[in-house]
């Protein structure tokens, strides 16, 4: 047991780091740019040097590397301040689907521009009535000559407003069972009839959109997979949803919670000396460290060529409620001031309050706590699925309630 790279991994890491040191753009090179332009600048530079899309075949603009190289690259890149990526969905979800289902011509046309960052893609799966029941989507596709005509609404579409293309699942036949009547397309987001509206969150952010389709026409050639096979294609997309490794990136953590507890008083002494504060910190450290070392085990498996499985759902299942609990606890430590959410007045510019307001979203987006627990129960422990009320019933006869 060690924390060292293998010889090959170490060489790759050194090469990556050397290139990054020489090529990461200085902040003032991109600070004046918009989010998308800055991201494109950095992606193009990586692409030109062969550092884009580590695991993709070289013919599509990738590096032809493996999973552990991807992880190592990510670790090294994250040590630098770089423009935030806007390509995760296109490269991580749309591209593998194109690789599996698109024509050679389409792959040659689209994949290199995905790798280079020239074109951005979004994912149009979720619908208002769907939620955790993703396949219960209602957006209609009807064949009309060589085109399909799309009507309906998608929701939770990240980056729709700056995307060039989108991957889209539709219902082409509502008279068959839920999973059987779906058909999968990609489309130009500038198509007539596509309307995009941002969704404001309670945290104040607006990372998602609603996308409305009104008689949007898609050529049949942009269909991926057979008519009625959309669910199988969608599963390919979803399987490639980035395995969330580690608890990384929770804004409130043991470190800043402990620092806060060292600064404020509780019952006349520094809060850090209070047994309840200590017990909670210990519990949260167990979770954070546990997730970190679980990710080490996952990486070890990856470096042996294994693919991370559904057991990685624990990162989100543990991390999101923990962030919410910690945020509330830290606000409590500030007493009356805990409810102030004012960057000029709040501890650490209000990071605890922001986390309190954004953590409900963390517990829901990408699969609710309850769905994550189901995934672990069913796919890791092999327990039976929940009883299904919609099994084998034509989609248009499935009870839907008022919503």
């Amino acid at each position: 047991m060690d924390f060292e790279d293998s010889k090959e991994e170490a060489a790759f890491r050194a090469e990556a780091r050397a290139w990054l040191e020489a090529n990461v753009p200085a902040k003032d090179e991109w600070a004046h740019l918009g989010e998308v332009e800055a991201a494109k600048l950095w992606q193009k530079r990586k692409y030109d040097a062969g550092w884009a899309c580590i695991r993709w075949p070289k013919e599509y603009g990738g590096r032809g590397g493996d999973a552990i190289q991807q992880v190592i690259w990510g670790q090294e890149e994250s040590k630098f301040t770089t423009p935030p990526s806007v390509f995760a969905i296109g490269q991580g979800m749309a591209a593998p689907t194109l690789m599996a289902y698109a024509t050679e011509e389409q792959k040659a046309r689209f994949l290199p521009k995905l790798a280079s960052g020239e074109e951005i893609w979004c994912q149009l799966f979720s619908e208002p009535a769907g939620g955790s029941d993703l396949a219960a989507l209602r957006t209609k596709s009807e064949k009309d000559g060589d085109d399909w005509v799309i009507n309906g609404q998608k929701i939770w579409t990240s980056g729709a407003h700056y995307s060039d293309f989108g991957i889209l699942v539709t219902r082409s036949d509502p008279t068959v069972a839920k999973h059987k009547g779906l058909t999968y397309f990609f489309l130009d987001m500038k198509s007539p009839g596509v309307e995009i509206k941002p969704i404001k969150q309670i945290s104040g952010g607006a990372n998602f959109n609603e996308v409305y389709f009104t008689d949007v026409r898609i050529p049949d050639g942009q269909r991926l997979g057979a008519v009625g096979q959309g669910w199988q294609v969608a599963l390919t997309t979803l399987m490639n949803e980035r395995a969330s490794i580690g608890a990384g990136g929770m804004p409130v953590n043991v470190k800043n919670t402990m620092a806060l507890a060292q600064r404020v008083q509780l019952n006349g002494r520094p809060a850090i000396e209070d047994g309840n504060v200590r017990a909670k910190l210990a519990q949260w450290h167990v979770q954070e460290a546990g997730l970190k070392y679980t990710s080490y085990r996952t990486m070890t498996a990856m470096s042996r060529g294994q693919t991370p499985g559904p057991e990685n759902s624990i990162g989100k299942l543990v991390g999101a409620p923990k962030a919410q609990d910690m945020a509330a606890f830290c606000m409590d430590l500030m007493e009356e001031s805990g409810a102030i959410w004012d960057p000029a007045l709040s501890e650490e510019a209000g990071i605890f309050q922001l986390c309190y307001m954004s953590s409900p979203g963390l517990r829901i987006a990408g699969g609710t706590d309850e769905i994550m627990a189901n995934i672990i129960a069913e796919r890791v422990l092999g327990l039976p699925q929940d009883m299904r009320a919609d099994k084998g019933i034509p989609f248009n006869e499935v009870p839907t309630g008022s919503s």
Partner: protein
Amino acid sequence: MNFEFSEDAELLREQARGFLQQNCPPSAVRAVLDGEQSYDAALTAKIAEMGWNAAVIPEEHGGLGLSYYELCVIAEELGRAAAPVPFSSSVYVATEALLAAGSDAQKAEWLPKLAAGEAIGTFAFAEAAGQRSDLGTRLANGKLSGVKLPVPDVDAADFAVVLTGGDGGSLALVDLKGSGVQAEPVRMVDFTRGHSRVTFDGADAEALGASGQGNATVDRLLDRAAVLFAWEQVGGADAALEQAREYAMGRYAFGRPIASYQAIKHKLANMYVKNTLARSNCYYGAWALDTNAPDLPLAAATARVAGIEAYHFASKENIQTHGGMGFTWEFDCQFHYRRSRLLAANIGSLNLWQDKLVSALEQSSAA
């Protein structure tokens, strides 16, 4: 054994609920959330007209002289509606401070105005993050100086009860409309309840109660306020449960209501359990408050701890039950999620009250 509110109080509840459904629908809360005002002035005025501000003020001071049970009922309904009004600061704290520590002259000056809705009061105890100690605010020669943060409901209030530092602490009464008072709005987690940073720079003020008795008076005041805050919390927690229940019944996944899945059923059952325990503890708190029972510190801390926890749980799991819609600005789940955090902070946190609760237990076991 008669451990329910009187018929009069229950009648008042029905009336209050109807009034608030009419005058404080979700759209009214949202108007403050989205707008420039820090509270709903029209609703505040109507509430005063209803006489709620006057409920427990003695008749000799122009009040209605009702029992605290009536005030608890009002608190519960205000909490249920997440009403964006400066009620708690004025009625649960400032009015109580005058009743407890005011001189005859102070009572005569302010209580009739409070009862009539012509004046609104607030309180300014905190100064910085963490628990109160070494307060810097001072009253000397009738002049108040110092910085208080956060102070609730300053925009609406005419006067404030201010806790100053020094040995034992002291209370001061300050006219917020006078000179030497500067208030800057502070953004809170709950946008529907205005708070400020208030700088007193030689503001005219007078002592409220004896010098050096401030901390002790505030402890007693907070015990009383805790019961009323807890009733607001129970009202809010029940409203959150009801929102979650309604959504879960109407929202279908995999061909059946999400309310038929045990993960949701047991979540709502847990809400119900916490709300029920909190409510029952609040009943006892109401009794201890109204009778000024020796047991009040324990009853108040128990109600407050239960109220904080029940409201926190219900408001966050209400969002969770709503799934994606729950954390959108468009949905109303946020009202209670924000309010629960404000009420948890406003008169001291869970940690503080847990400690008070056990201290009260220690005292009663030693007695």
